Every structure is written in structure tokens, then in C-alpha cells.
């Protein structure tokens, strides 16, 4: 076997393994992962919400960092809502899969509001940041309203 062929075979094999791993992620693992994303979103959103409401002093640097983290995190949870996880114990409601169009809209709303927040955070406009934090909070709550079991 020449080297090129070996490399291609190896790459294909790796690819197959990787794909396989993704497809085979166990439902309970996916639930755990998406919950971890939610937890981290809370971790980075919490202080910004506190600043927007004047409960803690405003810190533009923290906001810029947290908003950037949140923008990335806002994209991560969704492939964890695989249909295979329906039977797992979690607060996810069946509406996620029954009304997948609406769920996707809610997801996109969070993604775009979080992206907007990261942008205004860079601009340093405190008023705009505070308003946008509110918009992000609403998009979290909007999704929790219809797709999460109330606690």
C-alpha cells in the first residue's frame, strides 16, 4: 500500500468512527451535555442580568467576555435535543419534538439575541447592553415557557 492510499483509508476510518460516535452518543449523555450548556449559560448570563438590573456594579470587561461566551454557548445545546432523548428523565417537554418548527424559532431567537448582545458589548454602550440583556432574558424565558416543564 502506498502512503497516500494509507492516509486516505486512515482518514475515512477516522471519519467513520467520528460519525459513528456522534450518532451513537447515548441519550443520557446528550441530556447531560445539553444541561451542562444550560448551566453555563446561566453562569455567564447571571452577572450580566444583575448588572442590567443595577444589583451589581456595571463592568464592561466582564460583560464583553461573558457576552462572547454566551454567544458561543447559545449554539451548543440544540443538537442535544435529539429525538432519541425523548424518554430520558429531564424537564424537556414533548413539545420540543411535536412543535419542532416553533422550537427552532425559539432557538434561533436566542442565538440571534445572544449574538446581538456580543456585538453591543463590544461597542461599550452601557444603555444598549442593558436593554439587550433584557431581550436575551426574554428569549430564554420564551423557550422555557413552552418547552420546559415548570419547576
Amino acid at each position, binding site marked *: 500500500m502506498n502512503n497516500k492510499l494509507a492516509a486516505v483509508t486512515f482518514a475515512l476510518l477516522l471519519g467513520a468512527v467520528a460519525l459513528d460516535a456522534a450518532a451513537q452518543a447515548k441519550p443520557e449523555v446528550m441530556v447531560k451535555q445539553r444541561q451542562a450548556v444550560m448551566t453555563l449559560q446561566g*453562569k455567564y*448570563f447571571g452577572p450580566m442580568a*444583575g448588572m442590567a*438590573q443595577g444589583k451589581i456594579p456595571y463592568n464592561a470587561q466582564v460583560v464583553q467576555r461573558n457576552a462572547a461566551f454566551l454567544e458561543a454557548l447559545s449554539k451548543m445545546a440544540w443538537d442535544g435535543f435529539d429525538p432519541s432523548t425523548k424518554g430520558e428523565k429531564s424537564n424537556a417537554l414533548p413539545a420540543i419534538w411535536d412543535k419542532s418548527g416553533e422550537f427552532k424559532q425559539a432557538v434561533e431567537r436566542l442565538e440571534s439575541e445572544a449574538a446581538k448582545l456580543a456585538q453591543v458589548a463590544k461597542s461599550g454602550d452601557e444603555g444598549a447592553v442593558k436593554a439587550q440583556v433584557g431581550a436575551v432574558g426574554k428569549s430564554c424565558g420564551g423557550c*422555557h*415557557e413552552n418547552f420546559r416543564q415548570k419547576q
Partner: protein
Amino acid sequence: MSLRTSPAAAGLLLFALLCFVALDGALAQGDAKRGQYLAKAGGCVGCHTEDREGAVAFAGGRALKTPFGTFYGPNITPDQKAGIGRWSEADFIQAMRHGLRPDGANYFPAFPYPSFTKITDADLKDLWAYLRSLSPNARANTPHDLRFPFGWRWLVWIWKWLFFTPGPFQPDPAKSGILNRGAYLVDALGHCGECHTPRNFLGAPKSSRYLAGGKLPDGKGVPNLTPTRLKKMSDKDLKDFLQTGQTPDGDVVAESMGEVIRNTTSQLTPPDLEALLAYLRSVAPLPEEKK
């Protein structure tokens, strides 16, 4: 405008104003500023405002889905045609205290007058003064969309006879002022029980399950507000939650309560928030509703 140039018009206006002041002074005029605070504590804006970006506050339009059909909150701005511009203060007090329209017909209890009847006269006058101070908006009301036969308003007489006790809140002399204030905020203005107390098949709150939570008609869960559940949370956690909509672990509450928090609980003065919590901690602990 020619007000400045026309002394006759200015004089007329002044005269009209003086009449107003004299009249209202005689009847103890409501305080619009206090009324604004009370309107927040009552969460009026929620049902009386459309659920969309840029909606005009108090111009009506929010849909409330129930097993009896969908109700739409009406326009309560002082518009002559679309709103309540032609009402008198007495009409307003009759609506809130007795659940009756100016023409004497019943309101459906989707309008939470079983709670609002407990609001004191002085507070009703202030609320009225505040509503009069809003800018009129011509947004036309959306008719309710009710299932047969619930659209018959006279049926509400029976419902009222069974379930409705009119009359302002009576403080319990055996309890402290703060607990009475809390009870007033929760039961009269805040109308918390309208969602947090489960209802029977006729849509009346089950008094034996007061504030014990359960499920809304659309299947959404509503938490138990009695000490059974609240004892797990500190006063600080609860205050933070009612001011920000966030729990200590950074979780964001769902939007229905999120809206209540934005419009009402985060707007309460610190002593009122204290009173509200103290009262909730004092109610009878009830187990969670069976799922």
C-alpha cells in the same frame, strides 16, 4: 393652537379646570401617581396589552385561553369609543367591586374581579385617577371567542351566586400589619391565586387548595406558593427571584411569570415585597397537587 392668543379660550379652559378641581376636591380626588404604583402591583398591563413588540400599553388585546374559550383583554385607555373614556369613577368602581359593566351586564370572571373586589375604595380611586391620565388609544377591542354556552353573560349570575363574594379586604386584627399588607398584595391587587390556586370544573378557585399550584388549563405547571415549597428557599433567594426572574443558579424563569416579575413584583417597594413574602410564609402549607 390658538390658546395663547385667544384669551376667551384660555379663560374657558381655566374655568373648566377650576370646575374640575372643585368637583374632584369635594369627592376626594384619587392620586394618579399612587394609582400608577397600584396598577403595577395589580399587573393590569399584562392582560390589557397585546403580546407583540411595540404594543400600546393598556390598549387591550391580550388573549387568555381557558377551557371556556378565549378572552381578549379590552382597551382601558380613556378613548371615547375604543376605551373607557366615557366611564365615570363610579362605573370603574362598580366594575372592579362587583364585576358589572356600566350597563349592568356581568363581566366574565376572566377579568379577575373576584380578587379586585377586595381592593379598598381609596386605592380604586387612585387607580381610576391613573387610568384617566393615560393617553387615549383607538385600538378597537377584539370580541371574546367563547364556546357554547359560555358566551351567555347571564350565566355569570349563577357563577357569581356560587363563587363570588364582593367587598373590600378586611384586615385581620389578630395579625400584624405587615401580614395584612402582604395578604392585600397577594389576594386583592396581585391576584396571585388566579393562576396559583387550582380551579374546579366551573373555573372557580378551590379554596381548600389556596395557592397550592397545579396545572393551568393548557397543561402548563404552576408552582405551589405555600410554605411546603417556599421553605426550601431563603428570603434573599425569593427576593432576588421576584426582582430579576433568576434563581441563584442562574436559571431564567419561564415567560409567563417573567412578565409578572417585570410588570409587578420587581416594581414593588422593598417593604411591600417583604410583606408579600412574609404573608406567603404564613399561609397554610399544602402538599403539591397530584400530577
